């Protein structure tokens, strides 16, 4: 893109004919490229950036990242820059704060770099990917034991307003480590449309755990122009790709809040008069989200990795809303937070059944965590699903009327939620401890109910006495 055949830097156009929401229509242009970056000079001299969305031989439709506020037809000038939006990439960007377009926001000078990368990236060849299977210990039982995260995975947190998704994400960023390697994750943090307090919380949390020097932040807060949000995750992921694939670092990317991103996308689509699909979101929402989420993973032949944890708040806790729904179809599982559990004081309120990690199966078990891990997890899911049925039965006929075995399941459910899932915000459990807790819960149930664990595993772990040494 940079070696454009036509050099028209310097040529300024004034033919603005329409301004509509975030969009501007310029006439009388020539040689403009699709997706080209535009620098717009507002009547008061402000510089804003924009991007070409549609182009014909003599006209271009441009979306303005800074918003079209105060632009006028007569006194606005546009200069086409001959390339798409690019950001500089360097290791020195860790520890810095940028806006959604990669410009410094911390008062320091722009990072020095020879590497400028197109924020849209290029698709990774599926042949060149390395299948992710390195277990990441987050120290959180509900994740490590039940929905294991592996290096190079994209695992979103589906949450709702008022739920502790930020605390959970911060805890994961603080505690995540590999079992047999002493490598620290570099963290790339992208915030779209969140409140200042939320961004502040993450800064403080990174500061407290002493990793702030290892974090690059891309902030486009609630009061920043919404169109800029379209570019924030792209800028962040472009840096992440540079750090992972060029510098061999292991990068954890936290993105919050994807729902705000999708709303920005909807805003542009509506302004362009596109035919909407579900809930007014454009028909290409899936492809657009995929172009972000798929920028996670590992490449063949070693090097670093990108592990993605996008956070999204489900509007009115509805998991079938297009944003969580399409996200769930692209990402490799999801951690779902449950409002009812949170109300009962359980932290982290990770919903037992709808949460899922698709890459778990290859990241756990023999030589990775412990041979019994897949079976224990499957058994816990099966038993917990039974608990849900029995609870709804108990709500009708009363606890006393339950059969003895059902009563045991109820007891198991209690123990599972209060001891296995619930834990402290600063409690870092090893996978051994988590497995032990899982067995402690299963031990409440009679042996012949446990069909998903093998006979040997029952002999080895079920029959063993509870250690009682596990930290609560």
């Amino acid at each position, binding site marked *: *893109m940079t070696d454009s*055949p*036509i050099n028209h830097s310097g040529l300024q156009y004034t033919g603005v004919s329409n301004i509509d929401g975030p969009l501007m229509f310029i006439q009388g242009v*020539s*040689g*403009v*490229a*699709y*997706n*080209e970056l535009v620098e717009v000079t507002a009547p008061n001299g402000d510089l804003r950036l924009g991007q070409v969305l*549609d*182009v*014909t*031989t003599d006209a271009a439709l441009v979306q303005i990242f800074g918003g079209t506020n105060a632009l006028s037809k007569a006194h606005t000038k546009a200069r086409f820059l001959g*390339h*798409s939006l690019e950001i500089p990439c360097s290791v020195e960007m860790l520890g810095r704060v940028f806006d959604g377009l990669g410009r410094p926001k911390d008062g320091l000078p722009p990072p020095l770099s020879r590497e400028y990368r197109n924020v849209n*990236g290029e*698709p*990774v*060849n*599926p*042949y060149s*990917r390395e*299948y992710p299977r390195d277990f990441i210990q987050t120290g959180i039982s509900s994740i490590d034991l039940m929905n294991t995260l592996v290096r190079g995975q994209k695992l979103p947190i589906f949450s709702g307003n008022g739920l502790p998704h930020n605390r959970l994400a911060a805890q994961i960023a603080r505690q995540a480590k590999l079992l047999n390697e002493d490598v620290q994750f570099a963290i790339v943090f992208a915030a779209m449309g969140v409140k200042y307090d939320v961004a502040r919380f993450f800064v403080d949390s990174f500061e407290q755990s002493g990793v702030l020097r290892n974090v690059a932040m891309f902030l486009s807060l609630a009061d920043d122009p919404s169109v800029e949000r379209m570019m924030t995750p792209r800028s962040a992921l472009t840096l992440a790709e540079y750090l992972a694939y060029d510098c061999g670092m292991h990068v954890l990317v936290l993105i919050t809040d994807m729902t705000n991103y999708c709303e920005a996308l909807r805003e542009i689509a509506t302004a362009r008069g596109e*035919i909407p*699909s*579900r809930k007014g979101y454009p*028909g*290409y929402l*899936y*492809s657009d989200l*995929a*172009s972000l*989420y798929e920028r996670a993973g590992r490449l*063949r032949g070693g090097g670093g990795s990108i592990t993605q944890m996008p956070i999204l708040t489900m509007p009115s806790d509805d998991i*079938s809303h*297009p944003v969580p*729904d399409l996200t*769930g*179809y*692209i990402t*490799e599982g*999801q951690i779902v937070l449950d409002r009812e559990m949170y109300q009962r004081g359980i932290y982290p309120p990770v919903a037992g*059944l*709808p949460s*899922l990690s698709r*890459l778990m*199966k290859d990241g756990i078990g023999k030589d990775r965590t412990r041979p019994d891990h897949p079976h224990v997890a*499957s058994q816990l*899911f*099966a038993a917990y*699903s039974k608990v849900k049925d029995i609870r*709804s*039965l108990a709500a*009708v*006929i009363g606890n006393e*009327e339950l*059969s003895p075995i059902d009563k045991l399941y109820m007891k198991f459910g209690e123990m599972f939620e209060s001891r296995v899932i619930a834990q402290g915000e600063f409690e870092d459990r090893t996978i051994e401890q988590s497995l032990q807790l899982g067995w402690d819960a299963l031990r409440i149930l009679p042996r*012949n109910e446990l*069909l998903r664990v093998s006979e040997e595993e029952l002999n080895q772990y079920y029959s063993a006495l509870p250690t009682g040494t596990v930290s609560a």
Partner: protein
Amino acid sequence: MKTGIIIRINGPIVEARQMEEVGMLEVVEVGELRLIGEVIRVRGEVATIQVYEETSGLRPGEPVYCTGRPLSVCLGPGLLGTIYDGIQRPLARIAEGGAFIGRGVKKPALDLERKWSFQPIVKVGDELKPGMVIGGVQETESVLHRVMVPPRVQGTVKSVVPPGEYDGHAELCVLEDVAGKRTPVGFYQYWPVRQGRPSASRLPLAQPLLTGLRVVDTFFPLAKGGAAAIPGGFGTGKTMTQQALAKWCEAKIIVYIGCGERGNEMTEVLREFPELIDPRSGRSLMERTILIANTSNMPVAAREVSIYTGISLAEYYRDMGYDVAIMADSTSRWAEALRELSGRLEEMPADEGFPAYLPDRLASFYERSGRVQTLGGAEGTVSVIGAVSPPGGDFSEPVTQHTTRFIRCFWALDRDLANARHYPAISWRNSYSEYLPETTQWWRQYDLTWKENRDVLMNVLQEEVSLQRIAKLVGPDALPESQRLTLFAAEIIKNAFLQQNSFDEVDMYCSPKKQLWMMNLLAFFITRSQELIKNGCTLNEIRAIPDLDRMNRMKSEIKNDDVAAMTSLEQRVHAALDSIAREQLARASK
């Protein structure tokens, strides 16, 4: 070649003028980078082109080169074991230039320089018709590639090469038609993807496509040449089920299309399949597999065409007389690609923004399945299995609804089963197969009671559904003994038979023989227990049978061919039930 000039770029849709001579669906090369595109509309001198690569940086005024041919696939030895993108570019070759897919990359789909050992079976003077076999190439250890006369070519053999090693440029045999026109036939031929390959006639379906998945083979069988859909919300295991089918189904060739799905899933197949051994040929599964990967982040237009690319490859192997199975994961992503392109063309939308021709396009894909007599006289099948990803898991949406019109086997994935990690999560309530009559005939050759046994198990499962509703109100303990037995038996069927662990070395594939035995044992256990309860025994007596635990674990504890273990368990269960009967008789006579 004629060239046009770009006048507009809107995402993957490009308009160009001076295109009067271009044909509909002709392939063109767009811009200085020569991106691949296809003409989808011609209006006056302006042609609308969908571009199969990212269009960023294109400018109006850049040229468009016409090629004069429709979008085609290259067919010949070397397809098996390869991974392609949606327009049949070899991803492994592209990866030589870097891990990211750049634009304008051109690599031949098949390596024309590679030499293959060719064994001719025709001689000079033979009269050949289209589709007839001229010789064979051992493409992989397990697959003999039959080199065929391309459709629309025929004549008398004028010359043929002796057995030996030849490359893609070699004229293996030369045909002369009645008009005296000579046509050489080589290893490779081209076929336009949007057109079905011809066959002599279509045949009725007769055999099940065995999959090694019990819930499929026993309850909702697919016939060879049939079409099936797997709809399910996210996380219900569509891809896992597709992959299990691709691994173990009894087809000679597998074409697996990752259409708008995750990159890592294709990587997983690439990593796992070469290591897995086909239980029938004893060879690596990769030797019979072709992968087509157009992941969700790859250009959307190429996603639209990827399923046609896939099915054209499948038809080619069908024409050699093979059973081919094609998995498309997921047809919803394909439909969305259609919707996105349609939106950019500003077409009037029908249901939920999908274009009005969606059902038509779905039909043109699913109807390319079938069992045929090939032009060469052999018999081949293409079975199509399409995953559907309905938004919010709601099956009433347009893609699922239209798909059900063109398939006869519906494997509905159930959220509750998936939540309880009961895999495959194929629901026995909402799924159906219209291929049951054909497949019953086949199973009855091996076990006359197959249908009866299936009915016993199915009845228990269906009865359980309605009993559960009552049990949820009054508690299971308030039900009479016979109904509690039904609940108990359904539990055993679910644990011991329906649920299958694809990570367990034994359970991942269940042979037909073992399925028959398991069905027999379960059906016997259920009918006998029902009799006992009717005669006054209690459920607790039955529950106390010590070998129940073994029965619950038989799927993983007893190997596919371990007849001794099967007989032994069967005898113990029979004996235990007999002894309950005796005790009951003794009580009754007191």
